[in-house]
């Protein structure tokens, strides 16, 4: 009898604990639903807030996608790259011309030009302004160079060709000149820095927009907050609907940014692929991808929540029943 009683007591406390937990989640769900209903009840105002957040999130996302594409492109092709073959000193101009001609017959090589030591010295003179230095030397120190351009724009193919040519007996050293690609990489790095800054500024903008919207919402519900506090509502209970509203604004802004970005990418796909085809690349324009889309939505919701949180911290505690 005694043990039975205890058992049933334990069971009951378990049940109430579970009941309390269930009702905790029920409450959160209910609050979230009510927050959503409240946003939908003022569609124009809500839409304007969401639009501002969406545009603020769209800009960094668009920059991110363009950079991603440029990076992938620059890694995959090397339009305008050159291979310089520095010849052994004992190779005469005549021999060098023959090598150049021979190389040109290879399929992988689109063009080949021989620059003799004399030509190189003249060029050096003309461009560097240090001509006197070479004149002062007894012998021309510059080697003969064959400048080739690979017919393939694939960087792996170019590397293989470079490796092969560097083993030719007449060649002292071979160099792949990726100036174009290097410049692009440097440019991308710079853009990356700039876009990180842009992202931070726009994240701040989202915080301000949501914070201000929530501040107005708090003002509009001042009487209600007073009543809730009078009957024993904690600050976190009062804050909860506003935090949900902030997160919902941010999430909706993220969805809008994603939609706009998808539309932009779709409209760019045709012309971009045409352009790429001109460079005989089969590269396809990339979108955000599933993982990054998820990050965009999460980040939107988080920024919205944070903006609401800051606003709530500032304004809610000032409202006390008097």
């Amino acid at each position, binding site marked *: 009898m005694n043990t039975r009683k205890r058992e049933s007591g334990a069971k009951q406390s378990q049940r109430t604990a579970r009941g309390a937990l269930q009702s905790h989640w029920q409450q959160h769900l209910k609050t979230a639903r009510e927050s959503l209903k409240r946003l939908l009840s003022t569609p124009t105002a809500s839409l304007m807030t969401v639009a501002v957040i969406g545009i603020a999130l769209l800009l960094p996302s668009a920059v991110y996608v363009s950079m991603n594409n440029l990076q992938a492109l620059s890694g995959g092709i090397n339009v305008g790259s050159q291979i310089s073959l520095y010849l052994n000193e004992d190779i005469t101009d005549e021999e060098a011309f023959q090598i150049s001609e021979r190389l040109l017959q290879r399929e992988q090589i689109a063009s080949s030009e021989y620059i003799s030591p004399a030509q190189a010295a003249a060029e050096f003179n003309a461009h560097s302004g240090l001509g006197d230095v070479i004149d002062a030397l007894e012998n021309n120190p510059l080697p003969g160079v064959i400048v080739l351009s690979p017919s393939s724009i694939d960087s792996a193919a170019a590397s293989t060709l470079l490796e092969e040519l560097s083993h030719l007996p007449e060649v002292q050293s071979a160099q792949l000149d990726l100036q174009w690609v290097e410049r692009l990489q440097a440019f991308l790095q710079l853009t990356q820095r700039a876009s990180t800054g842009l992202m931070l500024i726009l994240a701040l903008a989202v915080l301000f927009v949501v914070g201000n919207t929530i501040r107005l919402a708090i003002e509009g519900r001042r009487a209600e907050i007073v009543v809730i506090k009078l009957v024993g*509502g904690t600050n976190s209970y009062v804050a909860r609907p506003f935090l949900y509203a902030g997160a919902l604004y941010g999430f909706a802004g993220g969805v809008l940014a994603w939609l706009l970005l998808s539309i932009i990418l779709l409209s760019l796909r045709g012309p971009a692929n045409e352009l790429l085809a001109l460079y005989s690349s089969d590269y396809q324009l990339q979108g955000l991808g599933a993982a990054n889309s998820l990050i965009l939505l999460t980040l939107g919701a988080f920024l919205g929540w944070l903006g609401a949180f800051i606003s709530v911290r500032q304004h809610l505690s000032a409202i006390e029943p008097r």
Partner: protein
Amino acid sequence: MIKFDNVSKRYPGGHQALNQVNFELVDGEMAFLTGRSGAGKSTLLKLIMLMEKAQQGQVFVNGKNLNRMSPAQIPFYRRRIGVVFQDHQLLFDRNVFDNVALPLQIEGYPKHEADRRVRAALDKVGLLKKEKMLPITLSGGEQQRIGIARAVVNRPKILLADEPTGNLDPELAAEIMHLFEQFNQVGVSMLIASHDLSLITRLKHRILTLDKGRLIQDAYHTATVPGAGR
């Protein structure tokens, strides 16, 4: 249950709202708080609700010293006290049922349990049939009943009321007071601020009289109270 120990309250600007007030309300007692407007009735109730804090003296409720209560404890303390306001303090964007359910919602009651208690409270004040209506569509007396139902829905041990009959005609006022007496009969301690002397002297309960912040009389159903409003 409620004990004031030499309590004084002065508002910024110098108005002395309460001046060295001493009294004790025991468990299950019902008392009226009377006096002219500005005598300190509302301030006294606000001190119990922790809407204000005393500068001098101590207020004990349920054995707890309110001076020592931290801001984080206040909401949980307020849940144990029911309050009825003269201006009802209802939420006009939700119906009668949801207004009464608010304290239970805040405490996180499971829905079926909350529903049962809300209906019981509404039944007690005679508004069960109007649970779906919006407060704005109801009369002043009915709105006051919503406020009362909300104040008792989580079965507090203490019920405070600030001029609960202030805007009601004598008949409705008597009805409301009768309702309060019923709660008192089941063990709820009650402190009701009212300047309606003719009404409260008819009910045979303890009457505390304030004048300019001082407690000038503490007596049982006196017919005439000097200094009190007419």
